[in-house]
């Protein structure tokens, strides 16, 4: 795999939100050195200068254990609420979506119950459902990845 422009943008965004000043990354011989405050990521072939590690900083905000995506470029459908996730409108009925389903931004993909109050969850992405991570009837946290979509159009 190689770094796409989108990957770099995503990494920059993560760095921006973290409390680290710089980041160096090497994937398949491509070295990326990012520094907060510099507008353009610098590609370089020589090893980046060692940066002093910050005092024991907590990991940036992604400590949750999540199954890695089966292919690159997928969009996550994250849970908008903490609650009990249901894949179907009622028990015994077919699920809103299955793997392979085409979804639009406003396609309902499930329901989250919070103390008997049912909240429909929309895909907020356009594409094809390729992974369903959340189990029917399970507690999902705020921000937990429910499904992954291969974006289209």
């Amino acid at each position, binding site marked *: 795999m190689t770094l796409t422009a989108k990957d770099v943008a995503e990494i920059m965004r993560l760095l921006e939100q973290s409390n680290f000043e710089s980041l160096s990354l090497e994937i398949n011989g491509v070295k990326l050195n990012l520094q907060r405050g510099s507008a353009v990521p610098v590609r370089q072939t020589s090893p980046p200068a060692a940066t002093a590690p910050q005092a024991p900083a*907590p990991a940036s905000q992604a400590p949750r254990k999540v199954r890695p995506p089966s292919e690159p470029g997928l969009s996550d459908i994250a849970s908008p609420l*903490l609650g009990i996730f249901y894949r179907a409108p009622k028990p015994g009925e077919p699920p809103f979506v299955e793997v392979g389903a085409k979804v639009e931004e406003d396609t309902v993909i499930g329901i989250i119950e919070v103390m008997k109050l049912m909240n429909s969850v929309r895909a907020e992405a356009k594409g094809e459902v390729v992974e369903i991570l959340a189990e029917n009837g399970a507690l999902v946290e705020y921000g937990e990845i429910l499904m992954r979509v291969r974006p289209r159009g």
Partner: protein
Amino acid sequence: MAIRRILIANRGEIAARVIRTCRTLGIETVLAASEADLDSVPARFADRTICIGPGRPSDSYLRVETIVQAALGVKADAIHPGYGFLSERPALARVCEQEGMIFIGPTAAQIEAVGDKLRARAEAEAAGVPTAPGGAVETVSEAMVLGREIGPPLLIKAVGGGGGRGMKRVDRLEDLPAAMDMAAAEASAAFGDTRVYLERFVARGRHVEVQILGDGKGRIVHLGERDCSVQRRYQKLIEETPAPALPPDFRARIHEAAVLFTERLHYRSAGTVEFLVDLERGAFYFLEMNARIQVEHPVTEAVTGVDLVAEQIAVAEGHDLRLKQESLKREGCAIECRINAEDPARDFHPSPGVVRSAVWPAGEGVRVDTHIVSGARIPPFYDSLMGKIIAHGPDRFSALERMRKAIAETRIEGVATNLEFHADVLADPEFARGGVDTSYVPRFLGRRHLPQQVRAHG
């Protein structure tokens, strides 16, 4: 019923504090954390952390349904609400009661009884506990009659307020009508309740409160008092026990008043009854009751050796009180300093950010309750409390000495703190003498202002 798993519906130092006791008791903990707190010390300390929503409290820590759903979802037996957030909202206690979830705190009815400040006043009167001259006023003419009777200066207090919120001082009777209208409008906006009441304003008062524990079956013990007169705009900064230099027999009478008040309510769990000691009249009045564990509870724990959170849990399990009044001993003196991320140079404005490094004190008689370590983030959504340093010694002199050393040992870098303020108060002879009133901090800051300017320019 034995509690095996507790959902902690709070954050910061109190979440870490509750987890610590749960660990001692062998109780599993699940922390309900907002997105902004997922990396926090309590999040790493808990057996499990679940994300309940975005950082803003109204989207996470203040959502009753989400909290109860989270507790049900992780199969917790009980919810510990900590302080602030939902701890004194009858709604959380009530939903817990409906769902068969143990709420580690008082009943919803008890929270309601003391949350309505006018009702709490009536409860105090019924229990024979002194209240400040005053009472409910519905119209301006009623207020004028009562105001004349009490005499200015007066306080107009919102029934839905408390903890210093929703109060208005009136120095002249002719200002009362206008102030009444404004107070009612403000109370309506802030608390959704236009009701107000009048009370005598006490010019020289001390804030003395009594820690109690009840088992909900009418048995109450008190664990002594705390003096919290070192406040700035009703925010407590330093608390100590015992209250120094109280007028003769006040201590025992205040303890008794707190017990009478809470006995009548058949109060369950830990609670604090606050009193205002009127130094000019040599009287004390019931102020309000806080139906929760309080920030300053560790000073009481230091002198009594009681783990108040463990007692809250035991009572929540349905046990009778394990403590007997006659066997409760209070040894020595304890003092607490609240270390806040706020900038004294900018009128104590909160200073959120990343704590580059944090070194907390240790040593004999020193306890630190904190969630702040090097690299920790102080999100902008919450209060600025970084930690509490508690020093205990055989007498007040040695407790203060230990606190001075502890404050000097503390190093926080990356955010502004009030550490220097604490160091200066601890070095102030007036404070060291003991028994300052609630106007001490503004007076002290005024006094301190000049030499500091000279130092800054010199």
